């Protein structure tokens, strides 16, 4: 088990963590999820039949771990909503997560892009992270997601559109603010 873990860790750990933290935007949560990925990998290694590459298999597991987390979060939120009225305060609670240090030291525009990723759906965000942050090809992304290449392209296009809309909105808001100050 140790040798297998060492091999995976050396080859993929950083990319795995990178994918998960950009998905969930929370360091300690990403640390927990990356462990979940390894646990699932260790438990299901026998079922890995070699049809896909090790990397594709690993990232596909990571994506499912992230999706499971979002589902659990949603169920939890729904349960809480049944007891409390969040209609007003719920909006305020969004987007108040602390930025990771690596993002906090970047300029405003980079921070806006990081925050704007929240405007994308989970699928769109996965595609954008794989394609632009991890630098994977359309084919590799399609393999990880078990999609056709055309579906990857469509999702990527929609994700970019959602990002652009959000960034445009931020710029508009900033323009109005600056005018008001003058």
């Amino acid at each position: 088990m140790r040798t297998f873990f060492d091999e995976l860790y050396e080859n993929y750990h950083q990319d795995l963590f990178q994918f998960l933290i950009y998905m969930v935007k929370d360091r300690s949560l990403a640390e927990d999820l990356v462990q979940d990925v390894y646990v699932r990998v260790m438990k299901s290694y026998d079922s890995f039949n070699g049809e896909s590459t090790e990397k594709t298999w690993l990232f596909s597991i990571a994506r499912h771990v992230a999706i499971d987390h979002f589902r659990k979060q949603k169920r939890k939120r729904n349960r809480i909503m049944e007891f409390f009225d969040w209609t007003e305060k719920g909006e305020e609670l969004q987007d108040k997560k602390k930025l990771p240090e690596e993002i906090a030291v970047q300029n405003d525009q980079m921070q806006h892009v990081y925050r704007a990723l929240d405007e994308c759906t989970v699928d769109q965000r996965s595609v954008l992270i794989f394609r632009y942050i991890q630098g994977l090809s359309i084919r590799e992304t399609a393999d990880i997601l078990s999609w056709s290449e055309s579906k990857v392209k469509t999702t990527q296009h929609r994700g970019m559109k959602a990002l652009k809309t959000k960034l445009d909105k931020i710029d508009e808001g900033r323009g109005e603010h600056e005018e008001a100050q003058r």
Partner: protein
Amino acid sequence: MKKHKDEDVENLLNKLPSIEDRQSKEAVFQKVSSRVNKKKRKTPPWLLPGMATIAAVVLLAVFIPVYFNNNNEMFTGEESTDQMHTTSDTYSSSEFEETEEAIPSAEDESEVEEARPEENDNEREDASIAEDDGKESEVPKTEENNVQTVEDTNGFNSLIAGPNIEQYETVTYPGMNGEVVLPLVPVTENLEQVPSTSYGLAERATSDLKYEISEQGDTVTVIFPEDFSVSGSSWTQAIIESIRWDLAHLETDTIMIQTESGAPVPLGNYGEMTEIPAIKNGEYVFKLYQYEGSDEQLLAPVAVEASPSFLEALHLMKESGQALYVKPAIPSHVQFTEVSTEEGLVTINVDHQAWASEQQLLTMVEAILATAEQFGFHAVQFEGINVREFSPYNLDEPIAVPEKINPMIIN
């Protein structure tokens, strides 16, 4: 207002920085490994406490009436009370005589043997307490009670098997993660009674094997089933190590292995093998194995490399991190200033700060004794251990190394 283009957004996404995981590789492995090895709960969580409660209620229902009946009898008249005292005196004196008889036989042994745990003294103490105690001494001494007395007299958890359970064999179990094996002496004829879960023991790796030992005891052949196969290097290692520790007491250099038809045995990554080396002096030090959430500790042999000296071995016993659930047997505040050897006796000069407990000192002493045995010494003399009270061993005398470790008393 300028609208963002696809290329602009792509560029920004490409420039997003790499966010690094700050957990160490070791920390991730430890957490993952403990979760992978965690057994799923097979029974509902309320079942055991529920059954325990029912058992307690049943016991109370049985014993409370008996207790009250006995008390009533005791206070029914002076005559019966006197009679009772007489009976208990008879029991305690005969028991005391038995203990007294046992002492000279121990005294006949060598000086080194005298320095074994002060079991006889404790038994003597027990006997005198029993003499004063009247009713408690009515419990007849069975063989099993004797065993319990040796291990638990002082209220300490001893990891060394006393001479009174020498008829029981060493049986080796892999630890739960398969990284270490644990030679034990279960005090039972039925190995199914071994509480493997509470000690964190995996299934025995050698249960399907047969050991054929020559009459002289100098050669041993391990017979594997005809269809034997093993997958995974850690389990292969666990099988080999279990065999070596099961047979550690034999005076042999090699252990022959074969299938029932006499063919070589396929041992995973090792390929087909016909023999495995027996354990030699200086190959292992002893540390402590404690499975997560368990209170039970066992001495665990941890292999060392490059034939260290005994002093180096003692330092290795202070190190942590070789295997999961294995921790140092020697506290970090303990320093060894000098180690000298003379005809099988090793003298260790110890410099230390305060001990966390008498148990901590006992565990360290016993782990050192086991390691000294592995290095071929017959006895250990400790110098410089300053404690106000330490009842399990007499530290002023050389202490004999143990023949067997990890006694497991099964009630």
